[in-house]
């Protein structure tokens, strides 16, 4: 790892000023779990690290019925998972945060760091896309708001401007009564998901009112599959419907192909993950088959 100066500013404005002045030689550090790997591999060689630890306004989780949930960017995955507010109002988000990576990374890694690194093989982007999260980006120039799906633009690329800091993640008031974030691993020993899929729905008994379905980790950015949502809407959930919608999902996405899995394999597994997740909308027996 190259030598660097370590700076500890206290406001978003100061951070933004440093970023503007130092440019590419300057990197922010939150939990450090992603950045340290990049530093050690000399993928990035900044001369200055700007710690976000003392910056005001980047912490805390609050909820109000009008604005919904606000999560400070420095909130760790473990804190999201533990938060009574999140568990009560957005159980799908708390559950996702409690299962991603491993206990250590959940204690160290922040939600903001996860989003800004824009690593496709991670969980929060998919879940937050389904929840229609909005990101708050701050700089010395002021604040702007961007849907998470506009923020994540490509493989390890976000819409963050060079002088901007992600300050907050906002999620509108919940309007779904079902939510599940599925993670699929190629082997049990892997941490990062090969595929993930978030499904949210409003149900009336075993009939779907409205659904949100987003696939991630296996596509460069989270992919919402509106065609599958449309097929689910207004229908009674049966094994046949789950298969029909899963086929649509598998055909709609554009999977990456790499050492962890070719695109054909990924597409097949997306089909399986989609079917199983949709089946969760109704009661299943111990073998995972739909009852009645």
């Amino acid at each position: 790892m190259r030598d660097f100066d370590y700076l500890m500013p206290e406001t978003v404005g100061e951070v933004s000023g440093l970023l503007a002045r130092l440019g590419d030689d300057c990197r922010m550090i939150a939990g450090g779990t992603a950045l340290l790997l990049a530093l050690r591999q000399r993928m990035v060689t900044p001369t200055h690290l700007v710690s976000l630890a003392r910056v005001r306004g980047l912490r805390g989780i609050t909820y109000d019925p009008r604005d919904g949930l606000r999560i400070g960017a420095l909130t760790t995955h473990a804190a999201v998972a533990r938060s009574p507010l999140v568990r009560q109002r957005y159980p799908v988000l708390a559950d996702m945060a409690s299962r991603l990576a491993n206990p250590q990374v959940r204690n160290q890694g922040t939600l903001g760091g996860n989003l800004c690194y824009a690593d496709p093989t991670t969980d929060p982007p998919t879940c937050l896309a389904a929840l229609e999260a909005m990101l708050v980006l701050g700089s010395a120039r002021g604040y702007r708001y961007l849907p998470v799906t506009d923020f994540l633009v490509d493989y390890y690329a976000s819409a963050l401007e060079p002088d901007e800091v992600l300050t907050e993640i906002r999620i509108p008031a919940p309007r779904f009564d079902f939510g599940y974030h599925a993670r699929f691993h190629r082997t049990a020993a892997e941490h990062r998901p090969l595929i993930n899929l978030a499904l949210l729905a409003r149900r009336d008994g075993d009939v779907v009112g409205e659904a949100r379905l987003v696939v991630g980790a296996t596509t460069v950015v989270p992919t919402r599959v509106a065609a599958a949502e449309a097929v689910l809407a207004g229908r009674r959930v049966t094994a046949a419907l789950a298969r029909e919608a899963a086929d649509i999902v598998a055909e709609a996405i554009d999977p990456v192909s790499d050492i962890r899995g070719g695109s054909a394999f990924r597409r097949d597994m997306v089909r399986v993950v989609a079917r199983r997740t949709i089946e969760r909308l109704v009661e299943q027996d111990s073998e995972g088959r739909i009852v009645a």
Partner: protein
Amino acid sequence: MSRVTIEVVVNGQPHRAEIPARRLLADFIRDDLFLTGTKRGCETGVCGACSVLLDGEVVKSCLSLAVQAEGHEITTVEGITSGGELHPLQASFAEHGGFQCGYCTPGMLMAAIAILNESPSPTEAEVRAGLSGNLCRCTGYVGIVESIMAAAEKMRGT
């Protein structure tokens, strides 16, 4: 070289140190404080051999800079014994075959402490999930899980 001064409490003892900003927490613990119980394994966040507690929460010290621990409290495997007595988890690992070569053990113990802090009567599935950030290349995990389950029972006093 860019240096920083940090104040940390390690195993109950306050330390003040001037270190390079780029010093990893794992290296600070081993090479500056000579607490070599904490191991370096993969140094990429995968194996968990470097696990320590930061304010009571288990973290990987290879994924953190020492300067990030400024103002915080660290517990390493050397800090879990009391008055020369093994921690109940350590005794249980020895009794139930929780290690062979022992390289993963300090990290496993720190993860195990975090598991029992969270739930004093964990299920086997909870123990396995709690160990998902720690690799062992010798035991096949069965002995480790048994050690933790047995220690949990002892520590509950049942």
